[in-house]
């Protein structure tokens, strides 16, 4: 899918993650110190946000991010008429978590509520959905909530996931504006087994890291090139490439492969972890002050990639967007 949506703007972005940091070196008891150090050295992730509260839900973090977003921008909750929840860890199978959020945020009964099951590509997919709700004329202000609380689904003995993933969520306010956003999304169900969380007694996240990495290294440079051509930007004029944040190693590798300058590819994964659909807003949230100061938000490319397999890219202007620093949950 490839399309441009006109008269659209991202008004604000906010993120939230658990207050607790989990130091991965403590896993030396399970996996041995030299192995843990080797993995930390390879991924560039030494700690992640991981709640000790087994009752924490993705909606808790989304609620906090959305609540802060509304209060900091002085936007009344009753003016929101759409909410999209993108996650792989909904609160329950039914009803939809977006409906829970409608109630918890005090949104009107006229609100359109949608859940979408996506992971690391989910932020781009969510932005596309939100933008089409507005472009279609049905909604004026949509909140995109994207994120996961993945901790309960991490097998304590599985190194491929335990050293990488963290809990986190985001809220993004999309409304009518004067800018144009370009979108490209792609899907390949052939890779469905590379990253999955099946129903059943053993509900642990499975990841074939090598296959996922191979996919990302092959497809991300292509879709980034594609979105640049579609939006008629050269890579030199783009201030920020906000890529999904799987680990430091992969991001540095992609940056080198695409021949992008270091400052144009911000990284925020150490101390947080891979927060799936929240990782793109998370990196913007972490570096917003520097990105703004360096005038890097006028031309921005987003790129998410992962479970599905699915991947997507978006070209947009964030220079008029209020981006808040991440909040810790609970306050």
């Amino acid at each position: 899918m490839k399309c441009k949506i006109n008269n659209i703007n991202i008004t604000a972005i906010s993120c939230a993650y658990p207050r607790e940091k989990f130091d991965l070196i403590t896993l030396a008891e399970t996996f041995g110190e030299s192995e843990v150090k080797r993995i930390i050295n390879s991924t560039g992730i030494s700690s992640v946000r991981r709640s000790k509260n087994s009752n924490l839900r993705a909606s808790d973090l989304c609620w906090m991010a959305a609540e802060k977003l509304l209060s900091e921008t002085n936007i009344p909750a009753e003016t929101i008429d759409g909410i999209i929840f993108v996650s792989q860890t909904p609160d329950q199978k039914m009803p939809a978590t977006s409906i829970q959020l409608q109630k918890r945020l005090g949104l009107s009964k006229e609100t359109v509520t949608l859940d979408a099951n996506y992971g690391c590509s989910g932020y781009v997919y969510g932005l596309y959905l939100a933008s089409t709700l507005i472009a279609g004329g049905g909604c004026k202000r949509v909140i995109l909530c994207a994120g996961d609380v993945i901790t309960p689904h991490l097998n304590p003995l599985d190194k491929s996931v335990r050293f990488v993933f963290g809990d986190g969520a985001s809220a993004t306010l999309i409304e009518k504006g004067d800018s144009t956003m370009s979108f490209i999304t792609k899907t390949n169900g052939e890779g469905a087994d590379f990253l999955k969380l099946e129903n059943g007694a053993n509900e642990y996240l499975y990841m074939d890291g090598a296959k996922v990495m191979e996919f990302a290294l092959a497809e991300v440079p292509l879709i980034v090139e594609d979105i640049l051509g579609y939006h008629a930007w050269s890579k030199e004029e783009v201030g920020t490439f906000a890529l999904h944040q799987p680990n430091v190693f992969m991001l540095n590798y992609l940056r080198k492969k695409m021949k992008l300058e270091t400052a144009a590819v911000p990284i925020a994964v150490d101390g947080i972890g891979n927060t799936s659909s929240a990782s793109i807003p998370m990196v913007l949230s972490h570096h917003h002050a520097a990105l703004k100061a360096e005038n890097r938000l006028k031309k921005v490319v987003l790129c998410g990639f992962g479970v599905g397999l699915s991947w997507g890219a978006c070209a947009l202007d964030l220079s008029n967007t209020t981006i808040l620093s991440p909040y810790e949950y609970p306050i």
Partner: protein
Amino acid sequence: MTKYYFLEQMNTLLEVDIKSLDKDFFLENLVLWDSLTRVSSIALIDECFGASISGFEIELCKTVGDFIKLIEKKSGVIL
């Protein structure tokens, strides 16, 4: 230069001097020959030689000789 950098990085990944190993040495007998090292190798080969090697191709390598032969074939560089 690139060749030496590559070999140095591979030695760091495997914690062994790969050139000192017999070509018939089985990769599976290397303690650190796991998915993390294989993924890092794919990236390293691409970075050093601009050659794309798939995870499947690496999985087909049984010995050090197979692995070196694959890299030489894809990169055109004699290690």
